[in-house]
């Protein structure tokens, strides 16, 4: 039922987190399991993003990964009123900060303001991706 991007994305997150978390080795031939605390990790699809100035920056709708499975950019649905005029833009993964769920109400913070993001071109699948990086500059994703 779920589309490809989510599957890819979940796989990415699991891979990325697995590298950090403790792995409990099972018996040979048995799949090993990893236990992640609920305050340690979180799903981010559809999560609202705030800017450092606490502005609403929209919601994460997709994550772009490279051949190694490393996250390169997040696609956020930005702006608009009741769904009119919103636009999907790509922001560099490094510009996003994930505050542990236990600490704050808004757990994803983008190191950019609305003013810096407003010029970003719309993200379109199958077209070269222009990513807005933490300095506010636009860079094509190689």
């Amino acid at each position, binding site marked *: *039922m*779920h589309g490809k991007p989510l599957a890819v994305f979940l796989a990415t997150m699991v891979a990325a987190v697995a590298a950090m978390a403790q792995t409990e080795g099972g018996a040979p031939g048995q799949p090993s399991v990893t236990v992640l605390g609920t305050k340690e990790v979180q799903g981010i699809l559809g999560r609202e993003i705030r800017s450092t100035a606490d502005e609403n920056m929209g919601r994460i709708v997709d994550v772009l990964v490279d051949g190694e499975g490393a996250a390169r950019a997040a696609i956020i649905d930005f702006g608009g009123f*009741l769904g009119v005029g919103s636009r999907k833009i790509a922001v560099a993964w490094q510009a996003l900060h994930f505050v542990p769920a236990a600490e704050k109400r808004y757990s994803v913070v983008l190191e950019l303001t609305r003013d810096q993001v*407003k010029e970003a071109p719309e993200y379109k699948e199958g077209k070269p991706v222009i990513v807005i990086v933490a300095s506010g500059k636009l860079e094509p994703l190689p």
Partner: protein
Amino acid sequence: MASVTEFPPPSSPHPSRRSLKRLDWFVFLVADVQTGFGPFVAVYLTSQKWTQVEIGLVLTIAGLVSLLGQIPGGALVDTVRSERVVAAVAVTMIATSALIYATWPIFPAVLAAATLQAAASCILGPAIAAISLGLVGHAAIGERFGRNARFASIGAGLSAAVMGGFGFFFSPQAVFFVTAALLLPTLLVLRGIAPGEIDAERAHGNLPELRTNRPRADLRSLLGKRPLLIFGSCILLFHLANAAMLPLMGSVLTTRSSQWATVLIGACMVGPQIVVALFSPWVGRQAQRIGRKPLLVAGFAALPLRGFLLATVRDPSLVVAVQLLDGLTAAVLAVMVPLTIADLTRGTGRFNLTQGVVGTMMGLGAAISPTFAGYLSDTFGSPVAFIGLAGVALLALAMVWFLMPETRPKAEAIIP
């Protein structure tokens, strides 16, 4: 042309003030109920961790249903004897759909809800027009459609503001709970319209005094009517030019102004509704007095003008002012589309089926519009996209001007 002018003025029906007031409120509440189902569905489903692929699929299927359902929906309303019951069922379907969205956002349920809402909308539109025509008859329908447009736009504007607030302060989910809760007042108001005052024959576009000498027209003979085909094509071109203009302008606004974009887009959505609320009853009265064509030409002329202005104006507050032209066009269209159809189908018993036919052409235009505008804006930038849309609008205007006949029946011209 000659065929629509020969009828004597029908004996005027006498709807009670109470029924007419209830119809005002019903139109108002239906517009409220429909507000949350626009582009907002995508926002809501995103907040429920839906992927873009799934959201796209649901919206596409709902779009197809609402396109293909127009003609069957209209045919259904022409067949039934109680327009009130049909309207009640449709409103209940929409409220059910809202409740499913709010409580059960999983793929099959939402797909069913979206389909339900799209199908119900195909019935509800013609049903409201049919109740109106059944209540007041052809002689007074222009002004009645004007009132309908007024209350629909007050409802849409007000609920966009209120639901926008609910979505912002509570959760996107809250919008759908509010929508579902509106079912009760909507049904109560509908009950207040006296069923005895809605003449089923009039509601279907028949003239009761001529009931015996005319069989019901079939779809083929309807589609053979030249003025109807011309009108349908005008409407198709109009929506091809119109549908993408507001969203395109919205995304342009978000690139220009960061702080105020949301407020400005809100103003661009609500502002025209105020214009419609103020103007549409006047449009209805003028349509009876000076005829349909001058108003149609004026309404269609405002669209290319708006396109050209949006291509050139840069100041965000001026954009909102230009957007008020949208209200002018919308006021004319909201009255003139059902009114022209009522004119063209006098005595055929196919008023609602014909609304379905024109609705399909409207939907086709609106469906192609974003792709057309999106292509232009991606390749050449948004000013060119606005000018492209304005070009299509000019074509629609030329068609109305040169090809569309005056449809006001001669017999009514003497009634002030």
